[in-house]
């Protein structure tokens, strides 16, 4: 196989599939794929953090929850317009991420993973028990539809298009980020921290920026989630969500640009089709991504890219295909 799609062709194909899909899918599958888009948004940010900066967060489910709850509370309890609420939710979550990241990311090792896990536990407990504000286990029903400049996203189909529009914009933006000066610094520090630092990369600052950016993506997805389901509930954002996000990253391919998208679509589809096995979803996703770490370390996308590269380079006499870092 010598033909390999160019970047533009791939992106155009993605946009075409996203636009055309609802014409063929049932209403139920459109809802599922809208969820897939939401997970993709979070995974794109998380992938920048893990795959490029080499740091782990186990708290992105909590950032989603923050986005959703702030949106829900401001619009339902205080009657704010959705767009203003969303702005506050996203900026506020970014600020929280900064307050967590700034001290912790100065320390080496994987302290961020542990502290974000603790943070997520706090958020989940508080969101289900602080009944006066969060509605406790009942949550916040009646979150209004999102409307932007008078156009109401009042059907699941419209929300589907909005969500995938945001996902694809962030996806394209991540190419820009990875290829920018900042992105090169990021990749350098993911590859070798000391080398990056000695070349003048402000390692701590870079890490904090990327962590905050990824939290903002998660908050944005959380807001959209709230408006999509017109409902917020703490159980939407429990540890299983984080486990699913990790499965998305690993199965899709960490450190590949297409990985988060492919992983999100694949795994959300799987999770919605578990049927009677839904109870075992944590187990299934845990085994899935543990197995992928062992047997498919580059993920689906990394594996396909490597095969394509290999197929293309083999005739030229190159024995060892070198997987491209920014594929």
């Amino acid at each position, binding site marked *: 196989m010598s033909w390999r799609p160019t970047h533009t062709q791939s992106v155009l194909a993605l946009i075409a599939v996203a636009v055309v899909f609802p014409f063929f899918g049932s209403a139920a599958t459109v809802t599922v794929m809208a969820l897939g888009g939401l997970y993709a948004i979070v995974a794109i940010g998380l992938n920048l953090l*893990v795959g490029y900066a*080499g*740091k*782990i967060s*186990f708290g992105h489910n909590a950032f989603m929850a923050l986005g959703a709850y702030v949106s829900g509370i401001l619009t339902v309890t205080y009657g704010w317009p959705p767009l203003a609420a969303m702005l506050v939710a996203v900026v506020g979550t970014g600020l929280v991420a900064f*307050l*967590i990241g700034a*001290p*912790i990311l*100065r*320390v*080496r*090792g*994987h*302290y961020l*993973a*542990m*502290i974000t*896990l*603790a*943070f997520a*536990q*706090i958020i989940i*407990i*508080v969101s289900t*028990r602080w009944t006066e504000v969060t509605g406790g286990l009942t949550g916040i029903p009646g979150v209004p539809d999102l409307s932007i400049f008078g156009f109401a996203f009042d059907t699941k189909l419209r929300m589907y298009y909005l969500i995938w529009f945001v996902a694809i914009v962030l996806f394209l933006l991540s190419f820009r980020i990875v290829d920018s000066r900042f992105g090169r610094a990021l990749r350098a520090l993911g590859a070798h*921290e*000391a080398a990056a630092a000695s070349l003048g990369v402000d390692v701590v600052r870079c890490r904090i920026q990327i962590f905050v950016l990824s939290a903002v993506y998660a908050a944005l997805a959380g807001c959209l989630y709230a408006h999509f389901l017109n409902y917020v509930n703490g159980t939407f954002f429990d*540890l299983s969500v984080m*486990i699913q996000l*990790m499965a998305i990253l*690993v199965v899709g391919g960490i450190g590949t640009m297409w990985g988060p998208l492919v992983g999100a679509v694949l795994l959300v589809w799987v999770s919605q089709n578990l049927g009677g096995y839904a109870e*075992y979803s*944590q*187990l299934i*996703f*845990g*085994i899935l*991504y*543990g197995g992928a*770490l*062992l047997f498919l*370390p580059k993920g689906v996308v990394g594996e396909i890219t490597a095969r394509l590269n290999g197929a293309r380079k083999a005739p030229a006499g190159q024995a060892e295909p070198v997987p491209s870092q920014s594929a």
Partner: protein
Amino acid sequence: MIDLLPVLLVNGVVFGAIYAINAIGIGLVYNTTGIINFAQGEFVMLGGMLTAFLFGHVGLPLPFAIIGGVALTVVIGLLTERLFIRPLWRRGAKDWTYVFMLFAVATVLPNLVMLGVGRDPLTFPAFGVLPSVKLGSVMLSSQALWVLLVTVLVFFALQSFFDRTLVGKAMKATAINRRVAAWLGVAVEQMVAMSFGLAALLGAIGGVIFTPLISTQFDAGVSMTLNGFAAAIIGGMGNMRGAIVGGLVIGILQSISTAFISSVYGDAVTYAVLFALLIIWPHGLFRPLIELKNEEI
């Protein structure tokens, strides 16, 4: 409220003991591998649950159930290393891969326990034999005394293991400089396996002495991991004496904060304390055994 303080302190010390054991376990794995063991709390849960299962469902006498529960947990710890860590190690995987993998283990284990043993909290009777002791106005139950006694024994046993035995010294050497240890003939892979086995042993012992006090459940592991980690950070990673102090600090803070601040939020209060501690003193209060070393694992 203030007359409650002695009781809360004693409770805090007893809870702190288990966090200290956990912190030591986390430190052991961290020293030989540089990996934070996210599955440490699961070993505590397994020790308690498997013993309770062998005692309650299989009907073994308590001492045999305990031996069985601990042994099974150690086997699971060793298998974790052999099946999930060593392949990554041999491949030269990036360091976040280990954290992801251990998190997968920490996800799968409780779910398997839920499937096999069920969702209900389980417990087994206190060991007895030891009397309960009256400390001033506070009654220290026999099981609480067991907790303290076993913790002290574990501490001294580990200390002499590291100071007196060849294997212990080899493990310590691996912790200080893995590459040099390998050059000097230490079988580094075996040391890593051993550190996982020991961490599982410590976790299981913790689970066994603790379960009669408050029972345990399939999902009890996460909070054990977090509290143990907090204790390990305060005490300095891998510093055993520090781990004991860290465990006591967390235990007492938890006991006092849940009593005086709020019990509605339960663990959230402890996590918030942990959170604040980590943000204020990310390097802990004590020196780590090894100052953070080469990043490559």
